């Protein structure tokens, strides 16, 4: 019987099976941010165990609230900063260098095919785009990961999601994943991994694969995952050139992780993306998804373009193509948060930022920002936001606010119309 990619990664990292069905894995990367890590650090200190298992395998960033907005967030940042210094964690990113965790860590080449990765953040599933098993965990799992370099999992089952057909004009990776979640529902993949396969995934670049895997958690999945291929190797080129003599050699190595043809899946879902249309969420669950063409009566107060889902350069480009030469509709506030400094700089260089500015958007520094309503871009009760983020939960962007999730192109269309709109009309 063949194995799936996740079963192969589990087999290669298994440290212990303390009880039947419980696998304790060795970790390749433990990622930390300033919201969920300080409590782990405080607890380690309290237990007299302020140690790290391997400072080179720990990556840390201040990203959720940066610059700090008040004393409490300043203290959180300081705890992480002091800890990183104390343990000589070289890969630590503070103001000036920092960006949204799930955008900056891949950009720095920290994630490789076949890796095991945890972080105290549910969207850690994003890194499955590289063929890694990457799972969001709570603070206690993170704490043990920091201290011992291990994490326990019930070996997840795999749901295979076949995406075939031709991507229609105006339909993006975000529309694909929202459409898949609508089908799966918010707990349709609990305790499972979503393995994304098919020609659509093969054709997707790494940004698109990250968007796809990022929202696997919104169907309850432990991780989303793609098979590592030439696109993965090209993206990682600068980081792996010392590890392999040639790209061919890297690819041969990557392929050993590929799911076998006779691997067993709990379920296989087939989608023909040719039938997909631009969509957005309605209400407060990410599986409540409707075609944008039916939602044009929904007025918006704010448009937010950013986050670990859609704050990458290709996302800014998609929005800018629609915004070029246009203005925000009267009464609409536009906010764009490039996800990393590199994205920020490139968008400055290639004129994308100028398009946003001329349209009337405010550009912020790289940060999670409005995505979780902790610092900037908070909605007032009753206000509505067209957003490229990943969660539309009650109160997510501010108590009493409503968030509609959509692609960057759709958010840009909403920005110039003042109501939700089908982006195809503006392309």
């Amino acid at each position: 019987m063949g194995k799936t990619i996740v079963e192969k990664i589990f087999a290669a990292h298994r440290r212990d099976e303390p009880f039947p069905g419980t696998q304790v894995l060795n970790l390749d990367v433990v990622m930390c941010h300033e919201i969920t890590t300080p409590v782990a650090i405080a607890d380690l200190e309290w237990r007299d165990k302020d140690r790290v298992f391997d400072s080179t395998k720990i990556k840390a960033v201040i990203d959720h609230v940066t610059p700090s907005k008040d004393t409490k967030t300043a203290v959180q940042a300081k705890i992480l900063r002091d800890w990183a210094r104390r343990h000589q964690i070289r890969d630590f990113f503070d103001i000036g260098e920092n960006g949204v965790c799930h955008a900056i860590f891949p950009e720095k080449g920290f994630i490789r095919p076949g890796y095991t990765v945890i972080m105290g953040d549910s969207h850690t599933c994003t890194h499955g785009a590289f063929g890694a098993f990457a799972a969001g965990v709570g603070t206690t799992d993170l704490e043990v990961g920091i201290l011992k370099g291990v994490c326990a999992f019930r070996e997840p089952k795999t749901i295979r999601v076949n995406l075939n057909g031709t991507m229609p004009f105006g339909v993006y990776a975000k529309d694909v994943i929202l459409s898949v979640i609508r089908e799966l529902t918010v707990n349709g993949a609990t305790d499972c991994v979503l393995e994304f396969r098919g020609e659509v995934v093969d054709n997707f670049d790494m940004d698109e694969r990250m968007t796809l895997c990022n929202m696997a958690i919104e169907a309850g999945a432990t991780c989303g995952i793609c098979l590592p291929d030439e696109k993965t190797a090209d993206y990682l080129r600068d980081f792996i050139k010392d590890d392999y003599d040639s790209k061919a050699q890297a690819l041969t190595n990557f392929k050993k992780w590929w799911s076998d043809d006779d691997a067993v899946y709990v379920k296989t879902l087939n989608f023909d993306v040719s039938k997909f249309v631009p969509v957005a969420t309605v209400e407060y669950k990410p599986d409540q998804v409707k075609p944008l063409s039916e939602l044009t009566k929904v007025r918006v107060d704010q448009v937010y373009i950013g986050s670990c889902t859609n704050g990458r350069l290709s996302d800014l480009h998609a929005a800018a193509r629609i915004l070029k030469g246009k203005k925000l509709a009267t009464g609409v506030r536009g906010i764009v948060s490039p996800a990393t400094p590199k994205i920020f700089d490139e968008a400055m260089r290639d004129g994308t930022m100028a398009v946003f500015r001329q349209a009337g958007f405010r550009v912020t520094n790289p940060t999670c920002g409005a995505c979780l309503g902790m610092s900037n871009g908070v909605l007032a009760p009753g206000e509505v936001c067209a957003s490229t983020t990943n969660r539309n939960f009650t109160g997510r962007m501010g108590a009493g606010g409503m968030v509609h999730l959509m692609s960057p192109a759709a958010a840009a269309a909403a920005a110039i119309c003042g109501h939700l709109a089908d982006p195809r009309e503006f392309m």
Partner: protein
Amino acid sequence: MKPFGGAVVFLDRNDINTDEIIPAKYLTEVKKENLKNYLLEDLQIDGFDPKGEKLARVKVVVTRANFGCGSSREHAPWALEVNDITLVIAESFARIFRQNMFNCGMMAVELPAATIEKIFKLADGDVTCDVDFAGRKLVFKTSDGRSESTGFTTTEFDSALVESGGWVEFADARY
């Protein structure tokens, strides 16, 4: 081992997410105790008052499917813990929330939908839940004398976490 059992609150909805259990704006707290007053603050269910008398006495939550979905924040179990709620009973849980509960030495117990439905039938009165951990048995009683009892299971790993007080102790002793 933590104490389990006592007064029950019923949350009659599927998919209650961790933003509803504890809103993101309180994630700036570094001390668990400080989360105490904000438990379930954004949860909107008819007849439920997060600031009410009733929630203050509660030790057990009974709810429907996919409780704890969304963010990985362990602040959700902590907000329960500092309010002395150590047991959540549901039809199903989101993976990270469930693991976080056991990692803290608390319990997230899954029961079949039909059993949950029977327990919900008691919800019109004041309900308490007695927990026999060794016998893996739960008994729900109303003040007017009705009751419902059911067995439950935990994996060996979950049991070890409950008995050893959580994952840090367990892992530190073993790895």
